[in-house]
């Protein structure tokens, strides 16, 4: 079998295993869905977001938080899921065993990416369906917005997956993996406009967040799901789709190089 076919085969195998692990299902798969539900219910009586000065218009908490949760879901499915998963596989001997077989590294990567793609698509579909049917969030009607959703998602998930593979080298052991990775993604979520309204953060914090990809994924999702009037509170009062693509692409290329150069089946010094 060639590298691609083996990769597809791995993706099937990895996806099957993914859904057999209870803890990852909660922390990466269901987490954004749970958070969206909590925020929607908890802030449902807090009034509307983005109302006009006369109190008309505005959107519900569910509608306001949906874009951020989708962006967080992409980040978690990619970075957190893979970084922890691969670090665990490195320390429990899975990778040592695979490293002794003729499995190409690239097929292994394709398998991980396939698993991330399948699970995150399901996750986002669930998020959108729950937001729409349980919390009455209106969905975009223009095809162009769905097109933007598609490319921001694809670029975002690929970047997150590649960064997850690269980051998996950081934890020394599988046990420490969650302790090392979760704080990173949690801080990113707080400063990138997932839980806290981005426009309310101090400028210096906004600037720091702008270095990282999550802020841009969330911004892209806000463009897709929020009314156009919300663009006025974005940085520069515009959705800035071009910069979203550029920043994500830079992280993608950097992550790809880092992942390919640093990936080892095992730590040879041990």
């Amino acid at each position: 079998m060639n590298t691609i076919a083996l990769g597809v085969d791995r993706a099937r195998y990895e996806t099957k295993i993914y859904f057999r692990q209870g803890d990852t299902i909660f922390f990466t798969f269901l987490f954004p869905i749970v958070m969206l539900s909590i925020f929607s219910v908890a802030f449902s009586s807090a009034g509307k977001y983005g109302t006009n000065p006369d109190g008309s218009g505005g959107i519900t908490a569910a509608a306001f938080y949906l874009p951020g949760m989708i962006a967080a879901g992409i980040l978690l499915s990619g970075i957190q899921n893979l970084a922890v998963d691969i670090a665990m596989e490195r320390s429990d001997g899975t990778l040592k065993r695979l490293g002794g077989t003729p499995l190409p590294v690239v097929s292994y990567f394709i398998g991980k990416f396939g698993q991330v793609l399948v699970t995150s698509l399901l996750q986002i579909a669930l998020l959108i369906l729950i937001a729409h049917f349980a919390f009455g969030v209106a969905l975009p009607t223009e095809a162009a917005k769905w097109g933007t959703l598609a490319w921001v998602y694809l670029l975002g998930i690929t970047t997150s997956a590649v960064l997850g593979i690269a980051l998996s080298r950081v934890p020394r052991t599988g046990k420490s993996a969650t302790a090392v990775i979760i704080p990173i993604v949690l801080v990113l979520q707080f400063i990138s406009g997932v839980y806290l309204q981005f426009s309310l953060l101090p400028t210096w914090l906004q600037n720091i967040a702008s270095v990282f990809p999550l802020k841009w994924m969330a911004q892209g999702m806000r463009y897709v799901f929020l009314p156009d009037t919300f663009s006025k509170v974005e940085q520069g009062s515009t959705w800035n789709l071009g910069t979203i693509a550029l920043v994500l692409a830079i992280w993608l290329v950097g992550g790809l190089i880092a992942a390919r150069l640093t990936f080892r089946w095992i730590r040879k010094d041990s």
Partner: protein
Amino acid sequence: MTSTQISSTGTQSAGGDTHVSVQDLRKTYGSFAAVDGITFDIERGETFALLGPNGAGKSTTIEILEGYRDRTSGTASVLGVDPQHGGIDWKSRLGIVLQSTGESGNVSVQEQLSHFARLYPNPRDVDEVIAAVGLTEKAKTRIKSLSGGQRRRVDVALGVIGRPELLFLDEPTTGFDPEARREFWELIRSLKREGTTILLTTHYLDEAAQLSDRAGVIAGGKLIDIGKIDELGAADARIPVVRWTDQNGTHEERTLEPAGVVARLYASLGAEPQGLEVIRPSLEDIYLELVSAYEKTTDVKSTEKELS
């Protein structure tokens, strides 16, 4: 021991008759030499056992040959390739059973083996391999719910699924019940008949005697003996012993002609000697003698060092 030097850059032809060639292999961790200058060859189709006490350097040697660890010095050639630079094609000709594994095992035996079979160009039949390791009834069971010995059998199955030309087995039968070990021996014999080259480590000396053609004994990272299974040890260590008891106590006689001794004994006693035994030293006896002799010499050396 004289053998031709293999340069580290040149590779032997892949079809050569020497499947493993190791010369003056060393691996140090800090100032500690885990493997301290080992030289041996394994021919195509041969089963070679590496014996030695805990910490002797067996796993370190094997993992260097499998490409998992980098050697400090010396040369190594496995299927004509330097294991530090083995690629995909090289790996597809190897089978590896590591000493220990700890995967989460969220797949069934059958799923795991089918998946691994697809990684190799010419794999064995999955169901046949499952049957050969005696797991047919457990084929649909998740690996994590298997017993220790059953999980170990999965390791062995994964090692042979790719129809390897060269199979590394690092203490493969740890945790096997006696029946499973007999089944495993049968599996290894069938692999040998197919011409598989095997490098085995084990602490079961009867297993080594049953399966291997030649063995090397290592202790403290050094090869202290190497040879055909029935030629290991000092010549007199292999001489049979005749043992019997009379009113003066227990007697032992080392002799190359035990039948003659017994016949003479019978003639002189005019009766059946009590507690008569003819003991051929087992591989275990010879091995223990070799290792304890080695330990004595190193003890002497280290005391000399301390004194000077």
